[in-house]
């Protein structure tokens, strides 16, 4: 089905010799004029692209001091070269993080540094690796900045902490500003504005889908677990990726959240206005679009009168939520100050487990042996709970509380050093399947290790992109798609309900106790 070779999984990851141009190409499908214009970008490549791009780059390096430092500071030490999953999977020299950065850095040097401005007068800009912007460079940017999932693994190993994700986001923003956008990301952001979520799932379809899921749960466990939509006066607004409504294994995670809320007696609702946690505005480096996408969450919280906002299993959504939400669309002084704003669903579940509020039978998951994939954005750009590293600890503690068989993948492939799934950052599209499959190689290698050494049968994830990406690419490596699982499916399956106790939904714990 594919006209490329899937990398072979060996006993350990071999660093390939760099090759020139093996992943050259025209990049992913380009956004149509209407996709572009809905986001405030020109519909197609503008005539004055050179000046506009150069000015945009100046604007971004002035707005974001970090970006300027990242472009200035690299000393070419090489520590990052073998840290990118796309380089390891493709061997393309331009997929080494330093080389990817240099695609933009070279143009920045030419126009925006004293050395570049001076040397170009004598045609000697090559001395400092500076390049005049050309249409070929625009095409090269478009191709190679869509072979970066903005996972930030390279930045962990860079002695200066240079963050290639920031550079890749800036490059995409420059491209959008001259009318060269990616169809996948920009069409999706347009759907969020028009319909409320990445899928384009309108409110009636969402309501119908949730109703069907409620019936399914009741058939399964004999308890009327509800999935409220747009209900005012509830305590919690749950904002979750729309893939949770639509796809497998995501939907089993959604069922898990609902079971947790139900058993803990927490009152909650979903919103059709904010029926998407994801925020692709971050992937395209557009502050304005990221803010506009986030604004729906604030509006929904006010409209529904909730006291808390909880995010479902979505990696980059949690980065935007945890790291940026307050500055993007805050202050959230109308929420209950006793709870973090916002909270991750795993923080909620972890807290309930610790306080003994959930009735768990971990043996329900005894037919599986689990490992856990740290999502890049969660591991390297956020936190959960009050302690440093909580974003690594809390998911594992939750899994271990609901599963008896758990093993970690090798240490240099998890936690802060986690390998990306290969589909993050706006890469999760069929037209980029080759880079997705090849970029998944390091994670697949690590999975193979625990499958062979520890008998691991399933890999749990907490990100809609990771789940979809793995389900799609894992068969290329000889695994099966049902080996990918949502963490909250494990939780939901382990919860024991005394069926028929509750006839109506969302009764408080106290009421249930009184009944007993």
């Amino acid at each position, binding site marked *: 089905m594919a006209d490329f070779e899937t990398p072979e999984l060996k006993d350990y990851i071999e660093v390939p010799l760099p090759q020139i141009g093996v992943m050259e190409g025209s990049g992913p499908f380009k956004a149509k004029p209407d996709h572009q214009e809905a986001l405030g970008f020109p519909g197609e490549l503008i005539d004055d692209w050179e000046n506009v791009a150069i000015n945009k780059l100046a604007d971004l390096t002035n707005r974001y001091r970090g970006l300027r430092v990242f472009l200035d500071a690299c000393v070419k030490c090489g520590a990052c070269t073998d840290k990118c999953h796309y380089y390891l999977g493709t061997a393309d020299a331009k997929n080494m993080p330093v080389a990817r950065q240099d695609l933009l850095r070279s143009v920045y040097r030419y126009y925006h540094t004293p050395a570049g401005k001076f040397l170009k007068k004598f045609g000697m800009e090559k001395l400092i690796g500076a390049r005049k912007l050309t249409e070929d460079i625009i095409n090269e940017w478009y191709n190679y900045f869509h072979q970066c999932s903005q996972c930030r693994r390279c930045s962990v190993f860079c002695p200066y902490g240079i963050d290639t994700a920031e550079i890749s986001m800036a490059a995409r923003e420059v491209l959008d500003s001259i009318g060269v956008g990616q169809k996948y990301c920009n069409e999706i952001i347009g759907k969020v504005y028009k319909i409320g979520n990445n899928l384009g799932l309108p409110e009636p379809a969402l309501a119908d889908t949730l109703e069907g899921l409620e019936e399914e749960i009741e058939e399964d466990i004999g308890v009327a677990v509800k999935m409220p939509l747009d209900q005012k006066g509830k305590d919690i607004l749950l904002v979750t990726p729309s893939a949770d409504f*639509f796809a497998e294994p995501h939907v089993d995670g959604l069922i898990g959240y609902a079971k947790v809320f139900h058993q803990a007696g927490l009152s909650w609702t979903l919103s059709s206005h904010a029926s998407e946690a994801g925020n692709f505005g971050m992937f395209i480096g557009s502050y304005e679009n990221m803010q506009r996408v986030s604004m729906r969450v604030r509006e929904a919280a006010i409209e529904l009168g909730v006291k808390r906002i909880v995010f479902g299993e979505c990696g980059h959504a949690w980065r935007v939520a945890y790291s940026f939400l307050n500055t993007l669309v805050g202050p959230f002084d109308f929420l209950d100050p006793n709870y973090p704003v916002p909270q991750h669903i795993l923080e909620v579940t972890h807290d309930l487990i610790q306080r003994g509020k959930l009735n768990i039978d971990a043996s329900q998951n005894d037919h599986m042996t689990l490992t856990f994939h740290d999502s890049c954005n969660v591991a390297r750009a956020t936190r959960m709970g009050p302690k440093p590293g909580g974003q690594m600890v809390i998911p594992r503690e939750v899994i271990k509380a609901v599963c008896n068989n758990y093993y970690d993948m090798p240490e240099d492939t998890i936690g802060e050093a986690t390998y990306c799934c290969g589909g993050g950052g706006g890469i999760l599209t069929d037209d980029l399947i080759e880079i997705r499959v090849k970029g998944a190689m390091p994670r697949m290698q690590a999975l193979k290790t625990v499958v062979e050494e520890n008998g691991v049968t399933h890999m749990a994830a907490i990100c809609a992109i990771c789940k979809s990406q793995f389900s799609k690419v894992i068969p290329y490596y000889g695994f099966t798609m049902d080996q990918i699982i949502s963490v909250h499916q494990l939780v939901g399956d382990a919860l024991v309900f005394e069926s028929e106790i509750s006839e109506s939904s969302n009764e408080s714990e106290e009421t249930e106790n009184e009944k007993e």
Partner: protein
Amino acid sequence: MPIEVNGVSHETDEEGYLVNLADWTRELGEALATEDDCELTDAHWEVINFLREYYEEYQIAPAVRVLTKAIGKRLGKDKGNSKYLYELFPYGPAKQACKYAGLPKPTGCV
């Protein structure tokens, strides 16, 4: 790359999905499948017809559990699961079946 049926040309997007949903006919659905070397049987049509009915009402393809439930009701419980649907549409029931049904490809993190 347009697709031609009975001498009439219909516009498709980069991935072969119909651009104008109103163009769709059963014959066009078959032609779209033939391009992927897929021969549509009654079992495929059961799914495609449901997708079209659902789209008509909700302007979106059904979520996987909506689809499996509906197929289970129509064809028996043993077929109301995604394994059965993947046997019919190995590239993914939502994406592949939508294409032959003349519906847009689902977008997002799916």
